[in-house]
């Protein structure tokens, strides 16, 4: 079993038309031989497997279409329903089958299964990748699809003969590899290849950085996105300045992708981009490098005699070029705070903090950087994971020191989660909404901003959105104590602090109360929803239930909520909530920081300029209507 070899790749567009397909004959030959071998060796009683060639495009589309019919949607249902057929994915009753699918094929009278096909949806494209497995894996999976009497892909008593889906997946790194490949392909096909964005605080040495970027890596031009930085004296993000743009104009061969729009990376011809990515990343179907930016740079630039190897050290495969230019270092800590605030006595608020340390190290040669990360005693990060280039440190008491050999460009050095124990949540308070009549609700929001937070941490941007996805807002009555309100058809947006304005500490406590009037709920819509809905409600009270046009204990907006997607955490539409969006600059919530002075470089060189900045943004930051229902989870 090789790591991850791919038999074929297909890309379909929104209309399920095939826009790209690629087969890898050498990998296919291996599969064919394995099947033949199995056929020859097979005892008469053992399950047999007939070799099925890779389907032609038309067959594949048909198979994919059939599967969609069978499973109910593109990704399928995942769990077993009364409509599930034996042998289909949903028969397995496991949601991973929404991502690792099987296709039923029939060619020349021989029917068979194509598995595992990794399905990745990127924008409007569906990417299908068929990695090479051993025939026994396919047999085991087919067996599972037929064997399990009542679903439940995992059994405790997992034996060599009767494997569970989990052990099959555990034994197949190629699926993991294919998923990673699919993700990158998705970025390539969408033209969204980008390095991680880094937040840069303008207060520091912006000019120097620009120089660095401009002179970086011996490339002559910089993406358009950066050009404006100097003009605007504001914090900005540094977009990818991928080396890629350079020789674009000169790339007359069909194999080169033309790069446009700076930060956007691969542009004009998605097909060409995909094609050239595949031919560089996996010439024979076995991916060897999945960094599209590096691949593109190599493809566009090639190597000159100037790019000689490092005299002593071996150059890592992920760093095709050695940096030449002014040395510079930049570190950013970016934290994302998510919160579910209940304002209930019996339910604890949930606040989680995830962070990442981003780096850009522009140094010549192949230096090792040692970076001490300062962690407050109370905010020890946990679940820290690192970039492959890092040597995993021994976990120290209050310090976390990472040694790494930096790759080119921006990269995420480490990720962690931390307890936000240093400071209180940036926004605290409650949101209440009660319906005073069918079409009118009274609401009250009261919040404390940045309570007990100290400079340099400042709230850069803060707003609160109250969505009513299924009601049309006619009017909102009420003025907030601070900030402005913008009403759209389906939401109220309270802009508390607009970026750049800052806010004074006297406005730390803010309220917003008022009423909201909705358009009457459309009767026709209700009727249709309930017409189909109520066969479930079998009682003599049906008529009343219908008259109330809502199910048990319904609240505003409960009625007719569409079932949530499997990718949603819950049915958002069934709840009333206010969602905050904020950005805090000047530090981290966890207290994690990096002191640029303590960064050490080996082999030692004179200290290059080194910057550190930090910011906190919000993920799902939700105030649940404390007079209504709320989703929760035990922790």
């Amino acid at each position, binding site marked *: 079993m090789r790591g991850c070899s791919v038999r074929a790749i297909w890309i379909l567009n929104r209309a399920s038309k095939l826009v790209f397909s690629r087969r890898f004959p050498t990998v296919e030959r291996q599969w064919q031989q394995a099947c033949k071998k199995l056929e020859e060796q097979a005892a008469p009683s053992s399950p047999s497997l007939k070799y099925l060639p890779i389907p032609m495009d038309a*067959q594949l589309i048909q198979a994919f279409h059939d599967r969609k019919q069978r499973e109910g949607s593109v990704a399928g249902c995942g769990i077993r329903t009364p409509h599930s057929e034996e042998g289909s994915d949903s028969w397995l009753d496991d949601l991973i089958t929404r991502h690792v699918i099987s296709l039923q094929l029939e060619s020349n009278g021989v029917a068979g299964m194509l598995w595992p096909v990794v399905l990745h949806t990127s924008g409007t494209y569906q990417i299908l990748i068929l990695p090479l497995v051993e025939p026994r894996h396919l047999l085991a999976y087919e067996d599972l699809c037929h064997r399990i009497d009542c679903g439940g892909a995992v059994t405790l008593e997992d034996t060599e003969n009767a494997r569970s889906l989990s052990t099959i997946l555990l*034994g197949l790194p190629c699926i993991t590899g294919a998923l990673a490949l699919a993700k990158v392909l998705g970025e390539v096909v969408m033209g969204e290849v980008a390095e991680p964005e880094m937040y840069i605080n303008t207060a520091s040495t912006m000019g120097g950085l620009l120089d660095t970027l401009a002179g970086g890596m011996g490339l002559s031009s910089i993406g358009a996105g950066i050009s404006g930085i100097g003009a605007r004296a504001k914090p900005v993000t540094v977009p990818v300045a991928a080396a890629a743009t350079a020789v674009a104009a000169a790339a007359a061969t069909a194999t*080169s992708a033309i790069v446009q729009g700076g930060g956007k990376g691969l542009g004009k011809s998605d097909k060409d981009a995909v094609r050239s990515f595949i031919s560089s990343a996996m010439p024979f179907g076995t991916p060897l490098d999945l960094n599209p930016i590096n691949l593109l740079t190599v493809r566009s630039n090639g190597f000159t005699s100037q790019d000689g190897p490092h005299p002593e050290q*071996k150059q890592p495969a992920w760093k095709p070029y050695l940096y030449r230019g002014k040395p510079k270092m930049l570190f950013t800590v970016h934290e994302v705070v998510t919160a579910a605030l209940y304002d209930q006595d019996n339910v604890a608020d949930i606040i989680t903090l995830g962070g990442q340390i981003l780096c850009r190290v522009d140094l010549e040669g192949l230096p090792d950087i040692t970076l001490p990360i300062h962690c407050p005693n109370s905010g020890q990060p946990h679940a820290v994971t*690192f970039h492959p280039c890092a040597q995993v440190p021994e976990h120290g008491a209050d310090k976390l020191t990472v040694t790494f050999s930096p790759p080119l460009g921006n990269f995420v050095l480490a990720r962690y989660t931390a307890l936000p124990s240093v400071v209180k949540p940036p926004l605290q308070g409650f949101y209440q909404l009660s319906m005073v009549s069918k079409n009118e609700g009274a609401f009250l929001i009261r919040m404390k901003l940045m309570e007990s937070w100290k400079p340099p941490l400042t709230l850069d941007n803060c707003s609160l959105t109250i969505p009513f996805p299924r009601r049309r807002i006619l009017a909102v009555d009420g003025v907030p104590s601070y900030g402005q309100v913008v009403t759209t058809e389906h939401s109220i947006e309270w802009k508390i602090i607009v970026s750049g304005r800052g806010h004074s500490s006297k406005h730390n406590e803010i309220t917003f109360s008022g009423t909201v009037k909705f358009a009457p709920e459309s009767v026709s819509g209700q009727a249709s929803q309930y017409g189909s809905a109520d066969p479930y409600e079998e009682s003599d009270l049906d008529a009343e239930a219908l008259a109330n046009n809502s199910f048990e204990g319904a609240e505003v907006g409960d009625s007719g909520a569409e079932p949530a997607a499997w990718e949603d955490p819950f049915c958002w539409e069934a709840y009333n909530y206010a969602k905050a969006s904020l950005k805090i600059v000047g530090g981290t919530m966890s207290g994690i920081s990096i002191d640029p002075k303590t960064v050490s470089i080996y082999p030692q060189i004179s200290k290059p300029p080194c910057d550190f900045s930090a910011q906190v943004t919000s993920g799902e930051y939700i105030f649940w209507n404390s007079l209504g229902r709320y989703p929760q989870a035990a922790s």
Partner: protein
Amino acid sequence: MADKGGVGKVLTVQDWEQLISDFRISTDLQKKWLNLWPGLSLLEYALQTITRKEFPIKAQLLVFIEENSEVLLGSDIAPGMTTILDHLRSVLQAPVDGVIMTNSLKEHMMVMATTVAVVSDVLHTALDKLESLVELFLVYINRPNHTPDRQLRGLACDCLRELEIAYPCLLYSCVGQLHTLCLNERTHVNQNYILLLTTIMENLSCKMYTARSKSNSYLPILQSAAPLVPFSVPFFLVSSIPGKEVESIPSRELTPGNLKEFRKVVAFLWERPQLLTTVGMLDFVSSLIKIYKALELSGSLLKHHFSNLLHSYSPVLCHIVLSIYSHFIDSFDGDEGAILRRLVALSRESSQSLPFRLLAVHWLRGIDALHSRQRKGSILAPYAKGLYPLVFDSLSLKSAKLGALAQCAVAVEKEKASVNGNAKVESISSNKMLKEGMLCVSSYTWLPPWSTETRLAFHIFHKFLTVAVPHLRGKQRDLDSFIQSTLFHSLQDIFVDMAKKKRKLVPSLLALLDRLVACDTHRKLAETLLRAFNEELLPTLGSDRQLPSYFPLLEKIAESSDIPPGALVEKLTVYMFKTVEEGGADEDCLIWGRAIQVLGICRTVLLNHRSSRCFHGLAQLLGFLCLYFPDIEVRDTARLYLRMLISIPGNRLRYILNYGDERVEEANAPKSAKVSSLLKSPSPPSYQGHKQSPFVSAYVHLKRVTPLLVQHSWSLVLYDVFQSKTTGALDEKVGEVLKTKRRVAEKAEFLATEKVPVSDALVPAVVTIVPVDAEEEFSSPAPSKSALRVMDSRTSEVILILRKHFSQIPDFLNGPGLKISVPCLLIFQGEIRQRVMGDSELGEVDSSPSSFSQLSYSWPAIYAVILTFTTTGMYGPIPKVRVPFLLSEPPQKTSLSRNSSRRVYQDAARKGKEKVAPEPEAAEKDTTLAVAETSMEDLFHKLVSIELEPRQPVPTLVDAHVVFSDEEGRGVQGRIDSIPIGIEDLFLKPPIPADVSLPEGAGDYLLKLYHALWEASSGPGRLGTETFSLQDGHNEVVVEGSESVKLIEAQVDRVVMAVERHLARFVVAVNGPALISMTKDGGISDDVLLQEGVESPLKSAAGGGSESEVSSPQRTANNQLALQLDPRERMDQRFSPQEEGSNTGLGSFLVLIFLPPRYHLLLRMEVADYSTLVRIRTDYWPCLAHVDEYLEALTTAN
């Protein structure tokens, strides 16, 4: 170029694009192109195009060649390969100009050439081409650190690696140089060198150095003096069989020296694994694992070098560690914690994409499974806390985590069971996991049932239920320990509670149950849950308007034959009472619907339970419905079910109820010969519960000789239902029922007066079935109570007569009772058998009637027929009937010509005589058709008589089962038509005591008996607690009389004719001169008339007492003529019959019928011109309903 292509056309860019896409779409389109352009010329043309300037789709062209080389090159590889190699060389040698010649073109050419070489198996088709290709690449890679072409060198490594994979050990001789190259290469392409080396090492260790040796002399692997170029393919590969190259690799001994070399290379390889890219590492470690396995090296070194990858945020790198783990579990002993912790963290990392987080949960469970496979213990449980879903986890992730949590819960439960309380208390209890885990989808309880949350919740419930007892092929698992676990109990509580509070979730619960039932392993769980619903949910449900929500659940409970349906039926009964009582006029439709549903559940109960178990409750419910439900359809169905319940044995009942369903199913199912013939067979197929021929009833018939007067095959038999009520054991509920009944009856009356069409089924039911209430107005005033206390001489005389009578009646409890005999005809229809068998078994045999005549030489017959009978009615065992031989009935005469039929008849007659009659010569004489035909009847119809010993005089159905041998000696058995036993079959004459002189004394005795019984049966308890002992004196009986009246609206002659025809045997006296004359003229048998003449002896016998008392019943019965007829007057009247016509009637028949085993039916038929009033008394009131029907039929039947 075009001339070479054979077609005078140049392919444009658009043409190429079209061609490329067509080749991908289907083979048909491929062929279309190949017809225009032979493959080879297409290849050449493509290759020439590539080096052209200004050609935008070079890459596509090369991929096109790669993907279609088999088609393009055809069977002879060499020429195509030569072309490709030529072009490859020229491209590689050309300087890079950035316009026509680019590095990427060179790379692509290399890839293409290698791919084509591998796919077309160049080793066996063009060996020299392979060698030159390898040489070409070797030259390239032999320039370490050469900068500008480093990318090409890297790619050359990849090409060589691809060839090495295709032909294992192809490059084994180059290992030494390659090792050196790897050591030297410092640019970023060293990954390619390393991977090439690893692949070769892998092939060497797995496929070549497979033998073990301890010899010290060894052939060094790494120190090869030979230069890389020229290269020649190893001899063993050259001689190998295509596709089986591995088999020809010579096995070499792995000496310690070689092993050392291997270790050296491996040590070099992992020196700086972080130099590799993520995916490169995946490939690399996969090979390394194989090398380790092959060399039997310890996995701890791998673990040491690579376990740090676990802390990378790349899932691919994590999986590498997992791969090492799953191959070297032993090396990780005790260190699983780090892996599990990392995976738990991965599943919680919101920055990872969803599939990876799902995978992380799978890996966790996979590791747990691997671990328990090895050491029989789950290691996942301590990490349960980390598997709790987070609020913002997507639903699919929640599902995965909860599934894993279910696994933890079960593991904890098992541990608890095995350690027996001695366990460490640190782990979370399984209940807690369940409750807290489910909290994240708690919204399913109020969201609509079609929400994703609800589906998820039930998916997880199913997981929790099933994960403890996995499926194992062929093994039946024991669920008991799980059913007794606390986890199961809390699940059960959740379900019961949920059903109680959330009616809308009942369908989801049902779906869950269905799923459990569908699985062999877990069916028992569903049954346990159903029982819990029955025991815990049902009592809490109100019989109110919410009950219908639970109907599906109740039906499920009813389906389970292990759960007593009593509580359920009771609940439904109360519900129906309430519904009928409260139902408003505007809710008719709703109530009707509910009743239909209730009936459906009743049907399910009937189908799945022994009738004895559910009998009482069901009968009550159905009885109520058929009497009081406003809708006629419901009443009819209920009546049908009730009759079935009472009269039909369980198996047959189930069959009948299923019959329609099966037909529908069969109609939908694919047709089989059996099914179709079954449907075609003229009479309904018999029950197929036993192994028997389903067709027997089609051609073996058992028919009554005398048809029943009352034609329906079901008689309403209510002995059980209403007797229980007469016991007076009315509980509170029944009291309520009666109240309701009264109200409903009033309602019905009201409807009737309003001329609303009321079902005719309702009114007679009320009148005939309910004896006590309805009789009051018709019956004579009850005898004075003093008669009970003071026994006067008349009463004592009555008692004396009765004592004498009863002492004549055999006591069926202590010996053989009285028997009745029902004569029947057994008929065999050979023709139909032929047809049926032809359809079902012979398939192709012509089934037209003419074939029968051709078969005439063997007139069909059946032999050794044994008929056995069963009935569920209250009858003693029925003796078997044996028929040694039975000829087939002649085929239908219309279908046979006269001649052939004659021949057939003669043949049959001869055969019949031969076999039945001992005198063959007699048969030979009967040569005329007429004679044959007369004897046919006896031959074809065997008269059999069914002997029945009634325990209660109620009509019934007697099921008949036949076993016989056919002509071929095959044993056939099957059920045949049932024989209905009507009330008239039970009519007997009372036994006459031996001391009565026959025949003169008998009439006298019977008349006395008639009057005595008439008096005794005048009302319940007429004779108080007086008991009469039966024949042996062991048992004593009480006479409890009931009476009823029936008005027969028919002309007198019709009545008289009917009596003469059907009741003549039982008439003990005829009163009234007009009637006497009519009966005399009508030819009623002399016996009866004569006995009428001896009427006076009775009078004299009774004369000892008060005459008025004796005659009091008659007097009150509005006929003073009785018993006062003078013989002379009678004679007079006989001569002057025309003076009748007064409204007082013409006279009366006194009819005394003995109903075995010990009951009586007394009729006093007061005949008038246009109607006859029948006063009925009996000491067995349940027969009244049948008598009523019988009397009705008496005059209407011809």
